[in-house]
């Protein structure tokens, strides 16, 4: 074998883009065309880095047959230009640079642009607009927080390094003893793997978060609460009173909430209650609240779509200006109601996680998919592009769950183009078909 490709290379400070923690302290050892070791990575990060190896798939597939990149771009552009109500969806597992080109495409074709946020923390995004978010960075949490509340989330399994790197374990400037200087509370319907890491575990009844959060709001303000709260929530009034006192008396508290709030009946109203509680607590102490974001750059998707359209997800651009309406312009609804007649799906897999009516409609319409891996969505796409994985083979910018942008340091070359490159080609061809700009004119983003 080629000794050059067998030489061990070390990439320091690489970034893991599997989950919203976006840990940027990876030490990757690369041998040939594989990552053979991912030091500092958690179990999810190791699976992310060590399972990426040369694929034996064509760069593009059109109607089930291998195609060249140019042929596939042509077919994809035709599908999107000829659609009457297309949707551009996904975007949470790609770079911000690719995301902004996807938004441009949605704008040119007069479609909707929506991200996986809508089936994740979309309701949280609605709640932020209604209440506001008392926010801070994970660095502030590490250095200052003496009370951590996890509500409806399970970081031990979904964000394994959150507790060790950012929230419960690390020694910080004002919490020099690390874990010993902090109190950790978990509120959840299941006694998850996170429970052993908590000082206090409150096993709440399912679908009672709204009631519990409003009761806490009352308790911290000294408003009497009916003792029947125990019957309602499964937690005694004494336990809620104890938590309320801890919330008020901490020096720097943070509530991290997960999809236990946003995916359960009540959704944005559950999150609004949590946001309002955090806001109220600032009458007594410093208190913050952050959503636990899932995909590696879902926070970037929120940011990019927001600074390009003014709204974070579920945006309709059909009238030439952005309109925001979750439930109407969100992809789960557009598909389930049978409204969208074409789709561009970037780095996501709706055929694996949408409702059955939505999945059935997606299978009925022509759609284009970009993904480094073969998924149910790429397998059924009219046009499927194999792209290089971001963070492993593609540089760019991603946002950590606390809205901190982080630069990627790729470790491996890839024979496949990046999402950004495919989308730029597609955007250019769409403009040509629509007669917008010159044949070789500039993109909406100002780059050739």
């Amino acid at each position, binding site marked *: 074998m080629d000794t050059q490709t067998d030489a061990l290379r070390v990439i320091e400070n690489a970034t893991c883009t599997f989950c919203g923690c976006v840990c940027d302290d990876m030490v990757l050892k690369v041998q040939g065309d594989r990552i053979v070791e991912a030091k500092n990575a958690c179990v999810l990060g190791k699976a992310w880095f060590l399972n990426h190896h040369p694929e034996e798939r064509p760069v593009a597939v059109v109607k089930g047959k291998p195609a060249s990149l140019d042929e596939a771009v042509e077919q994809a552009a035709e599908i999107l230009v000829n659609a009457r109500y297309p949707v551009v969806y996904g975007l949470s597992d790609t770079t911000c640079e690719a995301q902004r080109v996807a938004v441009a495409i949605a704008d040119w074709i007069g479609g909707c642009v929506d991200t996986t946020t809508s089936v994740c923390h979309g309701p949280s995004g609605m709640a932020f607009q209604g209440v506001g978010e008392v926010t801070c960075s994970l660095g502030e949490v590490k250095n200052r927080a003496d009370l951590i509340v996890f509500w409806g989330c399970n970081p031990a399994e979904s964000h394994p390094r959150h507790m060790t790197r950012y929230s419960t374990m690390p020694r910080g400037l004002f919490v020099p003893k690390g874990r010993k200087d902090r109190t950790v509370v978990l509120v959840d319907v299941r006694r998850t793997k996170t429970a052993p890491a908590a000082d206090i575990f409150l096993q709440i009844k399912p679908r009672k978060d709204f009631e519990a959060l409003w009761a806490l709001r009352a308790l911290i303000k000294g408003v009497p609460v009916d003792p029947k709260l125990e019957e309602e929530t499964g937690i005694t009034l004494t336990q809620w009173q104890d938590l309320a006192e801890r919330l008020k008396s901490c020096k720097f508290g943070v509530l991290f909430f997960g999809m236990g709030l946003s995916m359960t009946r009540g959704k944005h109203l559950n999150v609004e209650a949590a946001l309002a509680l955090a806001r109220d607590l600032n009458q007594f102490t410093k208190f913050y609240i952050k959503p636990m974001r899932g995909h590696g750059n879902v926070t970037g998707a929120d940011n990019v779509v927001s600074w390009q359209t003014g709204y974070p997800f579920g945006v309709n651009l059909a009238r030439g200006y952005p309109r925001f309406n979750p439930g109407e312009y969100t992809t789960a609804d557009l598909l389930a109601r049978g409204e969208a007649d074409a789709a561009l799906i970037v780095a996501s897999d709706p055929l694996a996680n949408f409702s059955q009516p939505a999945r059935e409609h997606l299978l009925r319409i022509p759609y284009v998919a970009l993904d480094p891996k073969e*998924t149910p969505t790429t397998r059924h796409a009219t046009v499927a592009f194999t792209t290089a994985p971001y963070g492993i083979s593609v540089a760019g910018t991603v946002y950590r769950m606390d809205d901190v942008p982080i630069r990627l340091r790729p470790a491996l070359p890839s024979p496949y183009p990046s999402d950004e490159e495919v989308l730029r080609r597609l955007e250019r061809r769409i403009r040509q078909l629509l007669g917008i700009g010159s044949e070789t004119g500039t993109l909406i983003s100002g780059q050739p």
Partner: protein
Amino acid sequence: MVTKADVQTFRNLNAETWQCIGMAQTFVLIAGRTSRQGTTLNESKFGSEYLEETQTLWMHVQDLAALGVEPGARVRVRSAWGQAEVVAQADKRGELPRGLVFIAYGDASSRLMGADTHGTGMPDSKGIDVIIEPLHTK
């Protein structure tokens, strides 16, 4: 097409009613991330480990016994919006109280979600009422 009235009727049927009509028992289903689901999806969503993880329903050991289901047996899970056939396993870690069942995100959990997002874009994916019935296969 499932109507709102159908959904309400489903919710109004309690465990006792289901038992009386000899079908099954009602539970509250939570779908969520697991470490194994997260790691195996990096290998392949068509791989046996991912499929096994996303097609396994975890429930309290006493609930399993009450249903007359052996660990590892197949059951049918129905919600107001769909159904899925999965393998039932006993929760040995003590995560789940009685009446609560868990499944990792995947095809089966998606089949049980409703399409209605109540104006949010987010279908009900956690805290879904389901009934579970054993599948007696020869």
